[in-house]
């Protein structure tokens, strides 16, 4: 084990573990980057800490400041921990249709939670947060969707860690939300291994999330640069839940539901490699553990239909 001066210093340096049962052959192997091993249990500790430190470095964030962030969970939880240790107040704007554990976790670390309407999902949280920001000009919105420090955390951390542990990597698969993980780690890995495939797994939710009033309300994160990606898959709730349960059953890894979506895309890449008869080392991100999703009933549902029904209408990733 490694020793660190404080909890904040221990962010990152997560293990990469092989999946001997889910890997289709000795030449086509899957590797899970266990980001749930971060201090608050998700990959978001990396960008959250990086955004806070960048804002401190450029003087935006000074002692006693209030931080504001649209987040339906993990980033808020990471920021809440960092804000508590560094002495900032944190206000999170979160869609009302997120799991109860999220609110509990945020409040536990001292964050204030304001809810945005369920319809429209995170788009709506972003809109409400921007409104609150304009009413409180002295508050600091770190804004994970457009903050280059988000990308930088993965360019400096996640990417190099994976390459050091898996120099033979052929594919990197991660979730597409703020796009920070893929833009940062993806760009780093592409620079080091020009032939690598960078694959995005984008969660596809229930209809509520897409119920915009008009198409112009659509949202593409400012950080997104399509040229970093090789391809992009949309993964629905059924496949996400199925793979989440499979990861638990076959490899013993208790992950959140977005990880199931990412594993689904990773397995798709593995199947393609087998068909093409080429070796592959496919690394994917385990974004968080399953703890925050226990109350959904996904893990102990009797069958896939019941598990899928359990997350109907939820923002599961």
């Amino acid at each position, binding site marked *: 084990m490694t020793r660190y001066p404080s909890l904040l210093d221990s962010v990152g340096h997560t293990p990469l573990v092989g999946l001997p049962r889910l890997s289709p052959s000795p030449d086509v192997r899957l590797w899970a980057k266990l980001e749930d091993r971060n201090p608050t249990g998700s990959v978001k500790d990396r960008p959250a800490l990086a955004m806070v430190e960048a804002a401190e470095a450029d003087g935006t964030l000074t002692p006693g400041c209030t931080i504001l962030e649209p987040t339906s969970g993990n980033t808020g939880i990471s920021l809440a921990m960092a804000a508590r240790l560094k002495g900032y107040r944190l206000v999170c704007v979160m869609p009302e249709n997120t799991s109860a554990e999220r609110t509990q976790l945020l409040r536990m670390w001292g964050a204030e939670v304001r809810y945005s309407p369920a319809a429209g999902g995170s788009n709506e949280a972003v809109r409400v947060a921007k409104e609150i920001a304009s009413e409180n000009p002295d508050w600091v919105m770190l804004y994970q969707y457009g903050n280059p420090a988000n990308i930088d955390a993965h360019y400096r951390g996640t990417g190099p860690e994976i390459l050091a542990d898996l120099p033979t990597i052929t594919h990197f698969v991660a979730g597409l939300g703020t796009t920070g993980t893929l833009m940062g780690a993806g760009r780093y890995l592409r620079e080091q291994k020009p032939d690598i495939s960078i694959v995005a797994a984008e969660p596809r939710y229930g209809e509520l999330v897409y119920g915009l009033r008009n198409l112009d309300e659509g*949202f593409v994160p400012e950080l997104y640069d399509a040229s970093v990606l090789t391809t992009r898959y949309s993964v629905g709730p059924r496949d996400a839940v199925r793979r989440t349960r499979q990861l638990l059953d076959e490899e013993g890894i208790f992950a959140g539901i977005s990880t199931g979506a990412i594993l689904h895309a990773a397995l798709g890449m593995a199947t393609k490699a087998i068909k093409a008869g080429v070796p592959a080392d496919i690394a994917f991100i385990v974004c968080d553990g399953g703890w925050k999703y226990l109350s959904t009933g996904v893990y102990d549902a009797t069958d896939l239909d019941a598990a899928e029904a359990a997350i109907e209408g939820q923002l599961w990733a």
Partner: protein
Amino acid sequence: MAVEVSIPTILRTYTGGAKGVEASGATLKAVIDDLEASHPGIAERLVDEAGLRRFVNVYLNDEDVRFLSGLDTEVSDGDSLTILPAVAGGSR
């Protein structure tokens, strides 16, 4: 080539409320032309002179067509096309 096209809530005013419709064509562009013939007005919401509109995502068998051949992407009998507005999504 007959394909199943999944229509997002916001565009169902053009399909009489239907969540999914059938359309045919050898490429995505041809499928959209066919959709327009059956559901006038829908094409303009999906494409402009530059191609697919910024906040419109189209997936062929779950893969984003922007990483295939865009509007020239070839479709085969029995494929599924999903149209979705770009959104920020979930737990960030």
